[in-house]
């Protein structure tokens, strides 16, 4: 270190821009997706109940219809983002060993991306009738 008593890093001082202005990113996206999740979850639950007891062909047709597919895609995108942020907080709270923490944070991102993409693939496949 330069021996300076300043709290700001040397790079920040040179740039003269204050903070990186990204400190509230996690908080903001957590709230943004939380708000989005409310109507999307209600819609997803209604759709799910509509599909109860129907056979595969009917379920596929309804799930693949444009309005339902778009709602479900938005639901999956919002929920997987929200759950990645939430699980990251849980990991940071309880896992203090640096390597394990980083590995789990990576696994968290991979899991959420994987679940999101598999879900999106399933919905789009029904929609495009492949």
């Amino acid at each position, binding site marked *: 270190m330069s021996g300076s008593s300043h709290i700001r890093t040397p790079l920040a001082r040179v740039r003269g821009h204050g903070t990186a202005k990204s400190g509230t990113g996690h908080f903001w996206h957590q709230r943004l997706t939380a708000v989005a999740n409310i109507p999307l979850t209600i819609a997803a639950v209604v759709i799910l109940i509509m599909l*109860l007891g129907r*056979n595969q062909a009917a379920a596929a047709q309804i799930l693949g219809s444009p309005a339902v597919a778009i709602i479900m895609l938005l639901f999956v995108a919002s929920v997987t983002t929200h759950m990645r942020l939430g699980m990251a907080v849980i990991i940071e709270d309880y896992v203090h060993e640096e390597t394990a923490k980083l590995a789990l944070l990576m696994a968290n991102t991979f899991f959420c991306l994987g679940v999101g993409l598999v*879900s999106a693939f399933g919905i789009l496949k029904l929609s495009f009738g492949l």
Partner: protein
Amino acid sequence: MAEIRAPVARPLSPHLQIYRPMLTMMMSIVHRITGFGLYFGMLLLAWWFIAAGGPNGYARFESFIGSWFGRLILFGYTWALIHHMLGGVRHLIWDTGHGLGPSEREWLVAANLIGSIVITVILWGIGLLAMGGTS
């Protein structure tokens, strides 16, 4: 430069085990636990979307979700989802600075808990009606 010394074993701040359990605190813990459960439950939704692509896969999915174990998971998932959603609404209200008074916050968490149970039972009632008893 000062010598690097081994870290001193400092006393830690008191954690959960030292406090008398309170409803707001328990509900905060439940909010995290339901979120944790919902996280892995999303695998079921992904499976459902993929399974809907063909009759054989859908039959496998239905036989799992129709079993007592599948039903139990789905029931727990329904409650966790509703509880976490209502808890989220509660936190969004708190974010605005409202509802933080002693009686208000107790009322909010109680409404959260009771609401989640009532809504879950209503949703399953509707669901079982929609199934037409053909389970």
